[in-house]
């Protein structure tokens, strides 16, 4: 077995990264990291590479002085400048390892700031604790989901709406797909989707470029999440269930958690649940999409049969893709994620008995599993490219990060339609593989 102490080629990112994916899904929201300048610059760079969009994240720019005497003054200054510079409706404050280690109480600093600063009273400020050493970006995402509803959701008059919480990181196109499906369903005004990165990380080119990209879940909607009749979290079966749990605990809003709708069965589960919530049958158009997905799977079933595949990446995404591979008759022999999660291992082993299911691993360990299992195809983020190159195995890029191919914002592997696209892509990669192999 490999390292006990060292991580070689990480398969995860740090907690503050996850928080950005939530904050950028809120209308008029600017994120700020409480930490040293580098954290915000690095994560801006990482996300700009992936989405090919400008990504602004502020920093409290802690220096030596701040690290010694506490960073309250820097954070307050940073908040004020963000408010003056960007005119945001909300500011998401995420801590970093530095701020947490020096022991700054961010919630307290924010409270003080809002008392001291009249200009800040109209702005929702969301403190989030995301020390990088406490978990991965997925856990940071989950933490931020909770922080947002904890800060913003307010009891009011019961509404007749339902909350759809996106419990793990998916693409802007995928959020758009879920939205338009609900619109087609006739419940466009009946749902609150949170967070909503559909426009903020995939902004159309326009004559005017605003300081904060348009789109995101309106603050009023998030506030109203406390009064909805139900919360449905998709992609929250490993991490990501915390916001719905909080709303259930505090406001009695019933919470259901489903995996990401990838593949036939998992999409059926989401549709079934939505039928139950809305009391309406699935629109015919989507029934036909489902039929097309079935058709696509049948078309390629002999080609893809038994192809030994390694699926890795974010927990929900990896499990969803693995599930689809099982449905297609492929062999997801290695299923891996960088975050530590016994639940991931349990679910993966149940789904694909006999497969190697690994959590909390790096690409060195994934590479060894790939070699051990004579893998023919890799599916996951671009970070697996060194294995792909070294072992000469094709890599189908799915998920974040993807720095070396275009269209990450528009990748769509969810729902019947998205799954169909993925099925076709997988089939085509295998065709090319066979052609090359002679």
């Amino acid at each position, binding site marked *: 077995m490999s390292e006990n102490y060292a991580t070689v080629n990480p398969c995860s*990112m740090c907690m503050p990264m996850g928080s950005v994916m939530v904050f950028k899904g809120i209308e008029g929201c600017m994120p700020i990291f409480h930490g040293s*300048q580098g954290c915000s610059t690095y994560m801006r760079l990482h996300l700009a590479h992936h989405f090919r969009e400008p990504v602004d994240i502020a920093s409290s720019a802690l220096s030596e002085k701040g690290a010694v005497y506490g960073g309250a003054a820097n954070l307050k200054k940073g908040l004020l400048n963000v408010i003056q510079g960007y005119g945001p409706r909300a500011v998401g404050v995420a801590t970093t390892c530095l701020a947490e280690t020096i022991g700054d109480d961010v919630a307290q600093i924010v409270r003080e700031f809002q008392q001291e600063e009249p200009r800040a009273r109209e702005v929702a400020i969301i403190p989030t604790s995301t020390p990088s050493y*406490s978990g991965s970006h997925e856990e940071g995402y989950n933490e931020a989901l909770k922080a947002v509803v904890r800060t913003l959701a307010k009891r009011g008059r019961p509404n007749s709406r339902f909350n759809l919480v996106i419990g793990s990181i998916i693409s802007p196109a995928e959020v758009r797909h879920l939205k338009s499906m609900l619109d087609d369903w006739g419940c466009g005004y009946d749902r609150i989707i949170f967070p909503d990165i559909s426009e903020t990380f995939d902004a159309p080119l326009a004559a005017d470029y605003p300081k904060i990209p348009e789109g995101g879940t309106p603050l009023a909607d998030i506030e109203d999440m406390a009064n909805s009749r139900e919360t449905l979290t998709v992609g929250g079966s490993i991490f990501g269930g915390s916001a719905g749990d909080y709303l259930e605990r505090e406001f009695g809003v019933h919470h259901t958690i489903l995996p990401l709708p990838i593949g036939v069965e998992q999409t059926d589960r989401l549709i079934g649940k939505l039928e139950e919530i809305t009391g309406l049958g699935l629109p015919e158009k989507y029934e036909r999409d489902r039929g097309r997905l079935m058709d696509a799977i049948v078309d390629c079933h002999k080609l893809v049969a038994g192809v030994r595949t390694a699926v890795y990446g974010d927990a929900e995404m990896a499990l969803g893709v693995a599930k689809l591979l099982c449905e297609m008759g492929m062999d997801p022999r290695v299923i891996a994620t960088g975050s530590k999660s016994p639940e991931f291992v349990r679910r993966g082993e149940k789904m694909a008995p006999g497969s190697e299911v690994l959590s909390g691993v790096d690409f060195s360990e994934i590479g060894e599993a790939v070699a051990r299992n004579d893998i023919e195809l890799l599916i996951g983020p671009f970070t697996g490219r060194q294995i792909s190159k070294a072992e000469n195995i094709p890599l189908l890029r799915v998920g974040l990060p993807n720095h070396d191919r275009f269209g990450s914002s528009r990748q769509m592997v969810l729902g019947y339609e998205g799954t169909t696209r993925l099925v076709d892509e997988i089939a085509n990669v295998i065709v090319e593989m066979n052609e090359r192999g002679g």
Partner: protein
Amino acid sequence: MGIIKTFDERADHIKQKSGNDPVPLACNNESLAGAVSQRACVYSGARVVLNPLTDALHLVHGPIGCASYTWDIRGSSTSGPTLYKKSFSTDMKVTDVIFGGEKKLAGAIRELAARYRPPAFFVYSTCIVGVIGDDLKAVCKSASEDLGIPVIPVMSEGFRGNKNEGYKAACNALFELLGTGDYVPTSPFTVNLLGEYNVAGDLWNVLPLFEEMNVEVVASFTGDSRVEEIQRAHKAKLNLVQCSGSMTYLAKKMEEKYGIPYRRVSFFGSGDISSALRTTAEFFGDSEMMARAEEIIARETARIAPDIERHKSRVAGKKAAIYMGGAAKAVSLVRAFGEIGMDVVIIGTQTGSRDDYKNISYIVKEGTVIIDDANPLELKELLVKQGADLLVAGVKERFLAYKLGVAFCDFNHDRTATFEGFDGIVNFAREVDITINSPVWDLPVERVPGVRMRTEVETEIGTEIGTEMGCEHSSVIDAGGESVV
């Protein structure tokens, strides 16, 4: 009233060149909290300088993020070893923060040494290492004794300053390696190239030129270099410093200890690469070499002239904005734009010094805006206000430019074409040309209602659609059509 609206504290960091006096610019201080500086941290500065050393093992002592975001982002090419393209981290967890990470670090070094057998380690400290007080130096020293190879601590806690401090930390680390190897050069004329990172393979455009002059490059700092080459670099007679921001500190240290003089040069732009060759020949005072240099310059300049002229004719008179990490590249760019007939209207850097900005203010034209440690809001306003046609910068700025409809040229880690040497300037001119003159900028950003394209091919289709839809708004169509064509 400043040039643009910005934070009060930032006003002194943005000035417009006016008259012959140098522009006094505030610089090299802490970035303003909340202003979205484009700068990174101390660790980042150290990492970008050291990472191109291809056969060293670069181990980050800290939480996983610092390693994740810097994994193989440098864009520097290798002619051999690929160890530097891997990302190594101690992935510190809560327990390490509470009980200290020294044991984990020592274990990681041991493990990785056994597995990869590198000739040397660089061990980077990150923010929290400085706070929890892990004794990085002691762990490295003891590991080095056990393993019998250099295990060099890089003191790069993120918050202890800006990128400049990181450059210094990296130079100190390199200095520790230096002088530990022995070497007998094959040529009497030997140089090191300092601040040459072999991005996209730049170095390989430059090396043949030196070779032709019978100058041996002992070590390149640090593009495509090996630990062994750095160890024997003290055997060179001259240091040519390209990226002065990152490497002047090391050049001075080498001069002090080994008596190696240094010269500032740049390999970017026909003028600058020519000067670099002349400077080298003059230093050695060898008449044959001087003649050879002139021969190369004449031959290469003539060879690329047709290409340069072709691109120049298409971009001359356009306005460029420059935003770089360091000042040396920015200055070189001003001259290169001069070679292709373009004017510089904005020039800025993340880490320029007072002298750098003084120098810049002498070489730019009246009205050029000079900016230190810019942020996206300022860049956006300046690009619009100064009417820039092109921005030269890095990835973070690329998409801002695109959103504003401004052409873009990547000068940092992400470019895939070489820009140095004589072939490099042609690549650069071509890139500037294809982005500025791309037809995408002529497409209407927003559709004019009722418009149909009046190109020859589409006239027929347009008519059909018009007929089909019973379109009667011919005046609107014509008016809109004008604006499109």
